[in-house]
């Protein structure tokens, strides 16, 4: 196999790897951020297991203990956490 083909395959593999890994890291970062906000408000949440994004700065977080919270920024620029 030529050097060019090897390099091409290696580059493609790396790109595919990072394309998969980067969103996973973003997802974990959002989960952690939402968990921190929820606990800062004094609301119970063992761990955020899934996040549904509704829009910019608008998420629904599902906690491990079954609670679901709507976390968003309101018009006054405040973080609001509503239990659903």
């Amino acid at each position: 196999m030529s050097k060019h083909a090897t390099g091409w395959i290696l580059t493609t593999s790396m790109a595919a790897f990072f394309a998969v890994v980067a969103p996973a890291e973003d997802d974990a970062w959002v989960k952690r951020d939402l968990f921190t906000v929820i606990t800062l408000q004094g609301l119970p949440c063992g761990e955020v297991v899934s996040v549904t994004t509704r829009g910019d700065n608008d998420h629904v977080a599902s906690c491990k203990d079954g609670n679901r919270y709507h976390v968003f920024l309101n018009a006054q620029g405040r973080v609001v956490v509503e239990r659903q």
Partner: protein
Amino acid sequence: MVLHHREGRFFVGLRPGSGTVRTAHLAEPGGPHNARTGANHFETRRRRVRDSHKPCATPGFGWIKIAWIQHACRTRACWARGDREPESAGGARASRVRLPGCDRHRADHSQRRLLQSAWPVVRGHGQHGRDSANPRGRMSGSSVANGAQARLVRIAPVVGLVLVLLTEACSGVKPAPPPSPPGTAAPQTAVSPGQSATNVAPPDARARATATPSPAPATPPAKKEPTAQDVAKRKTPPLDLASLEQRLKDTKAVGLFTKIGLKNQVDDLVNQFRAFHQEKLKTTLAELRRQYDLLVLKVLALLQDNDPALAAAIAASREAIWAILSDPTKLATI
């Protein structure tokens, strides 16, 4: 070709009948060709050398040995125990290496022991098993190719590196400075970032520069004992709220929602302080202090793992921020 056994060693005679001419050494008893024990004669020799230095020896070499030798240089434990300087088991004497900063004899002792441990390795690597100074350590051509020899050849550079590091480590050991009397201890003063080091002079020096020489004071003036407030004032760094705010905005230790949530809580607390000072809020300063401490703890808990420098800065500015919040005039300026 005849196999001889003489003085506990095996030889093969290439010219039988001639007696003394051209004999090749095969191996020592218990050497690499010993099928019964399977022991390597280099391992046996190294273990023999190590056991002869038992009181001061440490197993293996590498970082553990460096740490031990550095410790020995510092504490003089090995020399103080009266351990005798070991003789070289193989007859080969390692050259003395004088190490700066260490006691010469102790350093020679440690160096020689390490060199003796590494000697079979160096000999096997550099001379291909031929050592005229030590005929008992001769190796046949077949033993050069065995696995133990290859392993020893691999670690020879490591041994060299250990020796270099050992020299550096011992040269870095400095004797402990003599304890200064308590009256002459240098005062610790906090320096603000904008203040240059040349502007900072110890209080004693400043006092000496400004004081006029008195002819003969009858009684020396009594030293004023530093109060707790003076100590706290000296230890508290200057507060830079703008810098702290910018660092909080720029930190990657917390996410966007967390930052906005924290800012909301800080704004709420500042509004409570304003209302308290304007007597619009019926609460006590102690209650506000409790809320303030809780908020600072939240911030510190969020930052201390991923941005410890910022957490330390906030913790150090805690009392200064409280002084602003609790003072209505200062609070009105921010």
